[in-house]
């Protein structure tokens, strides 16, 4: 079998192959070209494809998003990197009021094929302004898709789909996934907007995204030892939001826990649960949410570790709710 694929390599290869495949694809951002990206996600692309296709920009996130929008409605398919998700408030006006509106407001004269990649999430001791996940800032904006991969194979397949998608796509890359290795993709692309059941189970449905999916799988393994058979769903996209797949799982387990790295109020987890309740209330015997604390991300290791829900916390939450004691205890 072929060797394992590293997440950061999956990102690089997806961009590389799409630049190769489609002459309209260009990639730009801060320190992405010559330096190869601060997380070493895009090394060699500049050397390979040249300045026309891959270039470094000024530290001007708003102009970057505007440049991508204007280029996208005139024939290019820009992929841009806004280094950290925390910086996504700066280019937001162009993304929300230009890119997300264009297809509808223009009466479908043209769409806006662009992708905005960012490193997101806490756990890296980067502090409050370098640890946020901006997905929820944009989740209520019609006209823009939000993709959130949890594995190298999905990262590659979803990023390729995002680049081929005719609509603006926000692409989330969790920092604590970059060094994760996993199986090579089996398909060329992964469709945007479909959740995935990544572990089958019958007792409870755990839904999460990004790094939370790995934590949930880890929790599921622990729970198996306690006789709890958890199904794990990777939501994979925050907009569109595939509540159907979640409903299908809940129809089987009748219990749902949604895990989010972010606060409960204003979070996608409670939003999803609300839609599930509206669509499938009768299927629900129990439903709850596990999130971070209601503060910005702390820097100090002791504080950040306590602030983040990990595999152990997820497992404990399920045991407690189901009234099961840990086998180990």
């Amino acid at each position, binding site marked *: 079998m072929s060797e394992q694929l590293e997440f950061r390599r999956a990102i690089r290869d997806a961009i590389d192959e799409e630049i190769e495949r489609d002459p309209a694809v*260009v990639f730009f951002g801060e320190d992405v070209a010559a330096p190869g990206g601060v997380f070493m996600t895009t090394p060699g692309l500049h050397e390979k494809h040249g300045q*026309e296709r891959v270039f470094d*920009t*000024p530290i*001007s996130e*708003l*102009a970057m*998003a*505007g*440049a*991508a*929008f*204007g*280029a*996208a*409605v*005139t*024939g*290019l398919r*820009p992929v841009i990197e806004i280094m950290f998700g925390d910086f996504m408030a700066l280019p937001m*006006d*162009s993304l929300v*009021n*230009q890119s997300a*509106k*264009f*297809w*509808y*407001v*223009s*009466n*479908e*004269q*043209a*769409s806006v094929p662009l992708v905005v990649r960012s490193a997101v999430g806490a756990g890296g001791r980067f502090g409050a302004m370098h640890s946020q996940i901006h997905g929820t800032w944009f989740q209520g904006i*019609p*006209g823009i*898709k939000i993709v959130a991969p949890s594995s190298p194979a999905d990262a590659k397949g979803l990023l390729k789909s995002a680049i081929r998608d*005719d*609509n603006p796509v926000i692409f989330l890359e969790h920092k604590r996934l970059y060094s994760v290795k996993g199986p090579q993709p089996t398909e060329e692309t992964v469709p945007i907007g479909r959740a995935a059941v990544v572990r089958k189970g019958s007792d409870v449905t755990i839904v999460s995204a990004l790094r939370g999916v790995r934590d949930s799988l880890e929790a599921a393994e622990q729970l198996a030892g306690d006789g709890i058979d958890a199904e794990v769903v990777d939501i994979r996209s925050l907009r569109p939001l595939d509540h159907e797949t979640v409903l299908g799982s809940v129809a089987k387990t009748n219990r749902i826990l949604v895990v989010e790295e972010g606060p409960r109020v204003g979070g996608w987890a409670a939003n999803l649960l609300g839609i599930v309740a509206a669509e499938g209330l009768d299927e629900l015997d129990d439903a709850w949410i596990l999130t971070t604390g209601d503060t910005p991300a702390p820097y100090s290791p002791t504080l950040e570790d306590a602030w983040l829900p990990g595999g152990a916390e997820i497992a404990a939450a399920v045991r407690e709710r189901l009234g099961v004691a840990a086998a180990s205890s």
Partner: protein
Amino acid sequence: MAGTQTERAHERQDQPGESPAEYLDRYGRMRLIRRFEQEIHRLFLKGEVHGTTHLSAGQEAVPVGVCSALEPDDYVAGTYRGHGHALAKGTEPEALAAEMLGRATGVCGGRAGSMNVIDLDHGLVGCFGIVGGSIAAATGAAVSAQRQGKVAVAFFGDGASNQGYFHECLNWAQVFDLPVVYVCENNFYGEFTPMASVTAGGEIGIRAASFGMQSQVLDGNDLWAVREAAVEAVSRARGGAGPTLLECQTYRHYGHSKSDPAKYRPPDEVERWLARDPLDLARARLLDLGLSEDEVSAKDAEIDGQMDRAVDAALAAPYPDPEKDSGGEFKA
């Protein structure tokens, strides 16, 4: 000053694009915009145009002069005060009027309205309700234009030059030598606030110096002056010599929006500017250049008829049907 410019105009007459007949057409386009704004104002007061609308009467020489220097497939980004930007770039008056009226035959099917018109068939990448947005859109269009041998133009106001968009995009364009012309329509007010009270430096043109960018401050009510500067900036852009900032000084005849009476403007200032109505200036110049009163009046009549037909047709058009025209969130 008008004198010397007329002399220059005389000298240029035989150059391509500089014949009196061509200027007569440009004058006609200016009158088309003027008449369009007058009609929209009337229709707004009648309740046929909804929400709000921002009229560009008084500023017609800027978009007409600039767009006269462009190819049909060059790109333009305009503002919420964008009727002139659209008409100057070639948008059909009837389709534009129908959009204002919220009709299904509008250039955006009635979805956009007065502030957000888009007409890609004529190179209008959009009019933007967000102050400064047009600067970004044109900068982005210039990224494509650079690869297509085209040029992009951004229209924006004096107030917009205080937006981060202005600074980030001008630096960006200069860094990448983008083929873009930044056209500031300086009408000396942002809404109800005088430029002098919120814009430091006294002038917009000088702001190009931050980036070593070419710039020019000029009389935005003089069609000839605007076209001359635009022709130079556009050929520089198309030739790979990079962006230019043009500050075109002009004045709006109506209030900022809707039925703003614009009481905040000193009467003598208003008078001074009304005395320099760009249409009157252009008309006088055409006569100086040897056109007859009849020739110019014939153009007036032609334009007025065109406008009346456009408005009548737009008023006769149906409203969009929510059942059929509501549309989807994404392109499939």
